[in-house]
Structures are given as C-alpha cells and as structure tokens.
C-alpha cells in the first residue's frame, strides 16, 4: 500500500476521529446507545485500519501484542473488581448502589467502570484476533527485510 498516497493520507486523517468517536460511544454509553462493546469494536477498527494500510509490522510496533494481553486481562479484572468492591462495601456482587455515598452516583460510577473494563477487553481481544489471523503464514514475509526497503 506504500504507493497509494491517497489511501495513506485519508487513513491518517480518519484514524483520530474514529478513536474520538469510540471514546464518545464509550463514555456516553450509560446515557445513550453504545457502551463498552461497541466502543471497543470501533476503537479496534482504527487499529485494524492502520494495520491494513501501513502493514502489520507497523501496527504491532504501535500497539504491541504484549500490551494487548495486559490490557485485555486488566479490563476483565476491572469489571470483576468493581463487583468485588461492591461486595466489600456491603452489597451483593455488582450492586452499584454501594459504590458511592448515594445510589444514583453509585449506579453511575459502577456503570462507567464496568463499561470501561468491557471496552478495554474488547479492544484488546478484537485486535489480538486480527493480529493472529493476519499474521498466519506471513511470518516469513516479516523476516525478509531485503528487497522490502521501508
């Protein structure tokens, strides 16, 4: 794709708004349609677009698979941890009422945290799946720098 200047420029222009939109869907998920899963998919789409246009190796350098492993696990831990925190404050698992001084704030924080956990895990898992599929059978290409000058 290196010779497609139009694609490269348009992609560069698009990625930032895509990520911004993902964050919008993420943090307005408790009031409007959207939420962690949708936001995660949109965010991952930005990374995947980058990988499609600039190559898998570039994408892996920007967002490393190792980082994704950590954020994926962290997201799940944030979700479950929110539930456990509610337990520690005297409620049932995931009872957001107990997260803050009153039930309304508690529900708000709880939803925000849990959706953040979901979003983090979804970005990581979708991107990881893409890396695995895109990387299949192409290991040799990555290891052949000669004739593939960047």
């Amino acid at each position: 794709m290196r010779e497609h200047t139009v694609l490269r420029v348009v992609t560069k222009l698009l990625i930032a708004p895509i990520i911004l939109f993902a964050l919008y869907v993420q943090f307005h998920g408790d009031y409007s349609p959207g939420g962690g899963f949708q936001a995660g998919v949109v965010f991952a789409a930005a990374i995947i677009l980058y990988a499609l246009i600039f190559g898998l190796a570039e994408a892996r350098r920007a967002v490393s698979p190792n980082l994704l492993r950590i954020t994926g696990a962290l997201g799940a831990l944030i979700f479950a941890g929110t539930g456990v925190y509610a337990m520690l404050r005297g409620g049932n698992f995931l009872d957001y009422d107990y997260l803050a001084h009153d039930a309304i704030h508690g529900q708000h924080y709880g939803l925000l945290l849990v959706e953040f956990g979901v979003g983090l895990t979804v970005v990581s898992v979708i991107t990881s799946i893409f890396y695995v599929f895109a990387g299949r059978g192409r290991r040799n290409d990555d290891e052949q720098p000669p004739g593939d000058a960047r």
Partner: protein
Amino acid sequence: MIEAFFAQMPALVIVLPLLAAPLCVLLHRGGPSWFVYLLTTWACFGLAFLLFVQVKIGGPISYAMGGWSPPFGIELRLDALNTVVLLLVTGIAAISSVYAKASVAAEIASERAYLFYAALLLCFCGLAGITVTGDAFNLFVFLEISSLSSYALIAMGSKRRALLSAFQYLIMGTIGGTFLLIGIGFLYMMTGSLNMADIASRLPAVADTRTVEAGLAFIVVGTSLKFALFPVHVWLPNAYTYAPSSVSAFIAATATKVAVYALMRFLFTVFGAAYAFDRLPLGEVLLVLSVAAMLSGSMAAIFQTDVKRLLAWSSIAQIGYIVMGFALASSAGVSASVVHMVNHGLIKGALFMAVGAMFWRLRTISLNDIAGLGRQMPITSAAFVVAGLSLIGVPATGGFISKWVLLEAVIAPGHYWLAAAILVSSLMALIYIGRVVEVLYFRERPEGRPDVGEAPVLMLVATWTLVLANIAVGLYATPLIAAAQRAASAVLGDGS
C-alpha cells in the same frame, strides 16, 4: 463480617475463578498461574462445602446478583440438588489442580501454560455458574463460557488430531448451545420471564401450546448434545482422547454431569415432572436412548485399542445410567441419577488420571504400549484397577452403590428389561476393563522399550485421592445417598 461473607458465598464460587483467570494472563508464567489455579479451586471447594452444609441445615439459598431482586435480576439459587453437583465440580477441580502441574509441564508448551490455566479457570467458572444459577438465560451464558474454554483446552492437546477433534466438538457443541438458546427463547416468548422459578409458575397457563412443547424439545436435544447422549455422542470420544490428560480428567468427570444437571433442572424445576413425563412421552424416549447408550457405548469400548478412547466410550455408556435414573421420574430414580453422577465423576476422574500418569511416562497410551506396565508403574496401575473395579460395580466401591440404587429404582416400577440392560452393560464393562488389566499385568513389556519408573508424586496423590474417595463411598454410602434423596425430594417436592 462473617455473616456478610456467608451471604456472599454463592457469588464467590463464580467470582473467584472469574478474577483468577485474567490474573493468570497478567502473570504470564506457568508456575505462578498454576498456584493461582490451585488456590482458587481449593477455595471454591471450601465454599461449596460450606454452601452444602448451609443448604442442608437452612434450606435453599437465593442470591440477588447486583442487588436486583428476582425475577427481574439474575438469581443464584442453591438447593439440595445443585449443592451436590457443585461439591462434585469443585472437588474434582481441586484434586485435578494438584494433578495438573506435572501433567501440564509435560504436555503444554511452557510459554502457553499460563493461557492453559486461564482457560481451565474459565471452564471451571462456567461449570460452577451453570450449577448455581437460577436464571435460564444466565445458564446458557455460563454453558457457553465453559464450552468455549473447553474447545480451546482440547485443542491444546499434544497431537495434531486434537485440533480436529476440538473443531468437531465446537460444531456439535455450538449446535447444542444454539438449540438450548432457542428453547429458552420459546419459553421467554410464552412466559415473559427468564427466572426459572418464575417461568415454572407461569408455564401451566400456556402449557398447551406448540411453542412450549417445541421449547422443551429444543432444550432436551440441546443439553443432550452437551452431555453426549446416544445418538448425539460422536464428538465425545475424539475430544476426550486427544485432550491433554489433566483436561480429560477434569472435563470427563464434570462437564457432562453439569449438562445432565442442567437438563434435570429444566425438566423438574421449570417444566415439572408431570408435564415432561406424564403429558409428553419424554420418559420412554429417554429410557430407550439410555439403554442404547449403555449397550452401544460399552460395546464400542470393548473394541478400542487406545485406553483413553476406551474410557471415553465407557463415559457414553455411563451417561446412559445417569439418564436412565431421572428418566424414571421417580424419587428413587432421580436420587440414583445423583448418586451415579457423583460416583461416575470420582471413577472417571481417577481412571483418566491414572491413564494420564501412564501417558506422562510413555507419551502414548495404546494397549500395546502399556503392556507389562503393572510391574514398572505399580502404584498407577493399582489405581487403575481399583477405579476400574468401581466402574464395573464390584461391592465395596462407589460403583456398586450406584448400580444398587439404580437397580432398586428400575425394579420398583417393574422395568425388568432395564435391569437386564444394566447387568449386560456391567458385564461388558468387566470385559473392557479386564482387557486393560490383563495387558497391564499379564503381558511382558514389549522388546526394546526402555524401563520406566513411577509418575510424579503429586499426580499419584491426586489419583489415589479419587480412588480412595471411591472406596470411601463404597464402604460408607449413607451421606451420599441421603444427600441424593434430599436432592430428589427438592426437585420433585412440589411437582409430583
């Protein structure tokens, strides 16, 4: 503080493995992950025991997930039936966690071991979740969690065929899961509720509709696929044969039992025995299928040359016993089912562990290769023999208790042909276990094979713990039978 902890126990059984799984991924190392797995399963075993005692003393427990009271929120509901199943699942998980370390180190690439333990914890979480939930849709979700992780676990087997068998299981399992979901969808359509107790109370008003009948059919076929009832059992032999040893032991002892539990829960708690067995001829259908499973499974087991595959076919036959019990829809039948669920879990767990220990040494488990192993691995071989005797149903073992209560249950209503089928299938078990024992003890080691020693201590300890549990049940069966009878009266109590 203690009371608050007791109140949270039903959720903790699921939450602990759910927290531990991502923790394993973060740890990124096999050793620490194994330790997390060990701690989690033993903690859950402890919780399950406390819950069992609590239900025995104080009756059913209801837990409102997220503080949303049922039927609107998800309810976890523990009664005399599912605390027994939970105790079995957590117990087997705890013992197999002791076993897993050496076995995993030998069979799973070390850089993937942490993922293996994470998947194992998720599978465990799903199985525990199916057991404790009182919500029909939640049950489906947990079923998918346990299934998806078990596909991954089976695919991690050391032979390439493991991938293919995991894929086969994935196809069949997904069809099963989808059928179950369609069935639950039909019930939701007719009753507007997903809480099992709530569906049960609303169902009689609409029970005459084709939709509810179709829902029942979908649920029965869907769960049957998951526990590999004849004739939808084809995925099971390959899956158990090619899975890593510790996975075979854990899944064979728990996953099918939990799926059977799910069907029992739907039939007795949601639909009610009167609807499923009196108005619809489900009992007759299941009895015929269970006999077919017992005879065909045992027959196929006789002709296997791979010991793991032999045990897998035997599992299909043993599922027949469990299904036969509750298909009678009598109190004695349901309690016989529960007794055999527990016993078969203990037996198959022990057998697969013993075979896994031989695999650990030999890297193969075909009958020719294990010839004469009785002298070189005496402790492992002895474990196989004792657990095998229990499978056949020799007195003073758990298997005998199972067969005894099941025979009582089928003879009471005069089903002598079922009793005959049980006896024939037991004789066939004698043949296929006898073949393995004969090869182990009465053949010479093949020429040119290196001498091997015993398996690692932890593997032997885990195997023998299950073997001794078999003997303990055989010698002192009262607590198990009493628990099974409480379970039967809990699910049949207000129906028939």
